[in-house]
């Protein structure tokens, strides 16, 4: 005579179903949780706060949003009131309302947010006029709207291009200056490479 297992009752089936459903929901819940990035404790010191996915906007006296900074990660260190941003992208309006875009691998904002210093492939451009300026470290005084480099810089406005040992830009005056060992290349327009 073969031994037969008793058939589970519907109540048991229901309990099993609930357990499986709970397990699936827990699994989904766990996968959505984003564990925060490592708290940066490097030579810059212990931060008091850090933010991720940041858009900073500064308004001028007329209430115009004239400066913006976007960065995936921003860290503030209280002992020097410095703010460090990863791969920052800045948008600045000069007093004519012309747009300037600036970016770098790393950025720092001094006490009360000035100056902005971009380090590593620092790039500045004026889309309206077609100017592009590239250097390694670029300082931008966001109060006087003056930018300057510490070292070699290149200015291009295709097809012309120029280089110098040091760069200065005065946004409000639409004036740029290269100093030291300056070389310029001005091809006729049709000869644009």
């Amino acid at each position: 005579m073969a031994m037969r297992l008793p058939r589970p009752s519907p109540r048991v089936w229901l309990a099993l179903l609930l357990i499986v459903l709970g397990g699936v929901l827990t699994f989904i819940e766990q996968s959505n949780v984003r564990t925060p990035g490592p708290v940066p404790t490097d030579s810059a010191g212990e931060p008091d706060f850090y933010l991720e996915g940041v858009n900073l906007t500064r308004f001028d006296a007329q209430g115009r949003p004239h400066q913006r900074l976007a960065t995936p990660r921003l860290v503030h260190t209280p002992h020097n009131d410095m703010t460090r941003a990863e791969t920052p992208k800045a948008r600045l309006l000069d007093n004519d309302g012309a747009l300037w875009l600036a970016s770098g691998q790393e950025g720092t904002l001094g006490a009360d947010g000035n100056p902005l210093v971009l380090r590593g492939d620092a790039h500045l451009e004026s889309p309206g006029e077609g100017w592009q300026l590239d250097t390694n470290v670029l300082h931008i005084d966001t109060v006087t709207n003056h930018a300057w480099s510490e070292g070699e810089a290149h200015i291009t406005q295709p097809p012309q291009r120029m280089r110098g040992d040091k760069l200065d830009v005065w946004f409000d005056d639409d004036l740029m200056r290269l100093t030291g060992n300056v070389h310029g290349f001005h091809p006729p327009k049709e000869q644009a490479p």
Partner: protein
Amino acid sequence: LEGDASAPIEIAADRLELDDQAGTAVYTGDVDMRQGSMKLTGQQVTISRTDQGDVSRIEATGNRAYIEQKPSPDAPLAKGWGRTIIYHTLERRVELINQAELHRGQDTFTGAKVDYFLDRRVVEATSNGESDGGQDQRVRMTLTPQQ
């Protein structure tokens, strides 16, 4: 030379100021500019562009500014000096102003102002320029007969 006008302008200097409102590039300090066979030197060289972005005018100043250019492969260099030299690129005309002097082959021209038309190789000299320091800038020409 034939290709000069379409050659790129290459320039070296101590400093450059780009004024986007005025559309000028001002090079200062031992400026040395080349365009094909043309060479222009001075203490300051200002490059002006048309609204379309073409180089229209190049002005050099110095004590004195200097320009040279090879009119054709077999012709000797044409050389010019002036406290101010203006190269009108679109007209292919060079103005030598104030203590102006032009050497073209064996011929020399001096005066307050000398105009040299590059393509036609025509020279016009005038003497009524305000000479500074009371220097006499009458027109003088030395034309050497062809042997």
